[in-house]
């Protein structure tokens, strides 16, 4: 069964319903044949099922954080690469038929109340041409377009859904081949149906794992992908803003916070490994709404990347910070060089101690550090 969680709340109660898909195993794919069909060299992936399951379980574990809604249902479809030790034989496989069926159930639940929140998450292979195509587990290079999901058409279909708050997360590559660009028959199967006369009000941002034409990354087996990792960090507090004394995560802030998180991570990566998220507004006719409110005593942390201006001084500097709000004693990096650390959101003195004939120690007073984080460059020019 794909239904991982059912809160069994009555339809009149506003609920969050999630459809979470993670496709790692593509049994019908053959990298060599993919190339013959002018497709990118597609292969099995480790991170999508892990990413999907991690997100699903995060939502279940943190359902008390939901602001103004209950956790309704989670449909989870995850296809892992078989390793002979599968301990979850009943897990629903993310084939096209299973996804279509889960989508229909999800749509119906979301449609039951305009105050519902609909969350659509896909992690797996993706291709981009004039439409974004998502590849289910039974995607085959023999007739590729009959088994690919047309995400743009699916997004349009959801405009017929009554749920005024919708969020779409596509954790997939958006690359193409030159030859694929020139294949006139590239298309996909839409999920759901779209009635041109039944477009409802909705705020429906989209978050793509990567900018168009670029790859997304799943870094290691057994771990969520980089985007999903950033997404979970953001809903856990990195996308939070303090309003009326409480830290809250809003729909509006989530996409740009994930972008910032990945951007911060890119600083320590080679150019080829960098990932640039692509948050898109989509339609926004139903106003914004809070998504999560952090527990009363929660104080989110922000990531800080210490460096020097000029950059070449960084290797010679020992960085430190001292909390003003909240007050905290001076804390030094263990060694010289660039320093990546996490601080409670607040106001800090940030400095660099340096002994070098060309540079001088520097101090930035009253630096504001807020989620998701920021680089701090201390000026040390003599």
């Amino acid at each position, binding site marked *: 069964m794909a239904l991982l969680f059912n809160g069994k709340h009555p339809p009149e109660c506003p609920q969050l319903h999630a459809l979470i898909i993670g496709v790692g195993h593509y049994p019908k794919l053959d990298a060599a044949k993919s190339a013959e069909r002018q497709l990118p060299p597609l292969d099995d992936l480790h991170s999508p099922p892990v990413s999907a399951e991690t997100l699903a379980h995060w939502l279940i574990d943190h359902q008390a954080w939901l602001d103004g809604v209950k956790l309704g249902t989670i449909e989870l479809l995850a296809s892992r690469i078989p390793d002979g030790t599968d301990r979850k034989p009943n897990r629903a496989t993310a084939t096209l038929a299973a996804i279509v069926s889960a989508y229909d159930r999800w749509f119906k639940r979301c449609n039951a109340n305009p105050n519902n929140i609909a969350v659509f998450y896909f992690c797996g292979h993706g291709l981009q041409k004039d439409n974004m195509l998502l590849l289910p587990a039974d995607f085959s290079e023999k007739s590729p377009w009959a088994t690919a999901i047309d995400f743009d058409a699916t997004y349009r279909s959801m405009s017929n859904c009554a749920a005024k708050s919708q969020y779409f997360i596509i954790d997939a590559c958006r690359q193409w081949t030159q030859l694929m660009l020139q294949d006139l028959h590239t298309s996909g199967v839409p999920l759901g149906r779209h009635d041109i006369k039944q477009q409802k009000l909705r705020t429906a941002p989209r978050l793509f794992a990567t900018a168009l034409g670029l790859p997304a990354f799943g870094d290691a087996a057994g771990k969520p992908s980089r985007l999903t990792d950033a997404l979970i960090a953001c809903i856990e507090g990195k996308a939070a803003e303090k309003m009326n004394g409480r830290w809250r995560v809003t729909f509006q802030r989530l996409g740009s916070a994930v972008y910032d998180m990945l951007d911060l991570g890119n600083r320590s990566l080679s150019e080829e490994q960098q990932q640039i998220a692509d948050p898109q507004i989509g339609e*926004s006719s139903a106003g914004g709404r809070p998504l999560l409110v952090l527990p009363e005593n929660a104080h989110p942390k922000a990531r800080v990347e210490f460096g020097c201006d000029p950059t070449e001084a960084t290797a010679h500097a020992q960085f430190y910070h001292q909390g003003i709000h909240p007050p905290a004693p001076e804390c030094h990096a263990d060694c010289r060089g660039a320093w990546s650390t996490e601080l409670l959101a607040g106001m800090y003195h940030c400095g660099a101690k340096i002994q070098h004939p060309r540079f001088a120690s520097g101090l930035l007073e009253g630096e504001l550090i807020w989620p998701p984080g920021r680089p701090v460059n201390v000026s040390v020019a003599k």
Partner: protein
Amino acid sequence: MKPTAIRLRSESIPRGAPVVADLLDAELNLKWRGAVFIDEPVVLPEPLAEGHYAVVVALSSGRTVTSILNVTDQAGPEFDVVLPSKSTAGSDPAHTYPSGPFFAAASTADPSPSYGSLATTWARLWSRDADQKWHVRKWPTALPRETKQDVVRELETDHLPLGQHCIQVGSGSSQPRVTAILPGKVCLVLRPARRGDYDDRAEPAVDVDVYPETPAAQVLLGYLSHGDLERAQLAGSEVLARLGVDTARDPAVAISGAYYLLVFRKLVELEGLIERHLAECDRWLPDVAVIDAWRLLRQEPPSVEKARDRLIAAAATGVPVFTRGLRLLLDGLRMVALDKTWADGAVAHALERVRRFGQVADWSPPFSTYFAVQPDTPINLRVGMDWLTEAQQAARDPCNIFPWASAVADRRGEQASRNEMRSHLSAPFSRAFGYPPSADVDAAKKTYEEFRKTVENVREDAA
């Protein structure tokens, strides 16, 4: 006296440009968020008590700049906030606010020399005249032939008249791309591209960032493109509140405002904006008909028939200037084509036409960008442009396109012979396809055919 207003000052951001600012107290409570025009005071909902505050300004590029305020009992009623010239990303100020477009796209902060070269770049400015034909426009701004690769290059067009315009850019042997631009004065930033390709055919490629002259349009487009929903809404409402009666002279503000109103489904205001500021642009700016079509589709009740006609009209006018418009045109035509009540031959024809552009479009930039040999001829193998791809591959590696050349060289058994063969093929090709290639597709094709004949002669000589 407690301050009741703040005024943002900046050396880098033009006076009157709208930005969205957050005012946080020392404990990071969001005290206020709103749109601010540079150098103009904005009244706060309540006076500022003594203490530390931070003003965080989110640039439409996604970067932020922060200023710390220390409000004392000596403060006057208006508090001046001087924005630093450096973003919180710590990037070089010149990259944060390039001299032309002040809100610089984030990507310009990280020029990627390894992905492309500007040294071999050519650029061509196209305009569409009254008889609907595209022609290359004389452009006094010549591209400097620099060899330094890590330079982001800025260009400015002259004041372009009302009508359709675009810039076509190519680099090395990569496929040329066309980017739509608005009339008026436009700043163009050329930068080496980071463009992924599973084919591993990475060629020196160049992306073009387009910045309309008006700061308000830049900001609104930036927020909309960057997915910053709340800030787009705040900035948009302020920009539209200031729309003057002469906005028709600057379609950039009006059209970006119209997209804003469509996104936020403010349909009554949208209808008024189209009537007042965009009606005159309708005959040459396809975006107007696209926006109007979606207004008709989203109103209660929807007017599908009128919307269909507007979509067909838009497709006939040309490619929308904004990528958002191209997306909406394609989606709208697809929706109508799937509905038996409204689908007909005209819809199918329009969809086929738009799809040809959509299939070779880059959906990332805010302005419509697609691979094309000329603005109305998208590059597509299946519609008779295969010779161009072959020509480009030949330019990269003649021996690969003409395998017999390698075979001949290999038979000779010397690397020198292979290189000689390569130069035999490259030289005539370079003569035929110098930079930039011919603007006339038919002439270019003829040239390539002549080149092939030359190649055949080389083959016979080699044999």
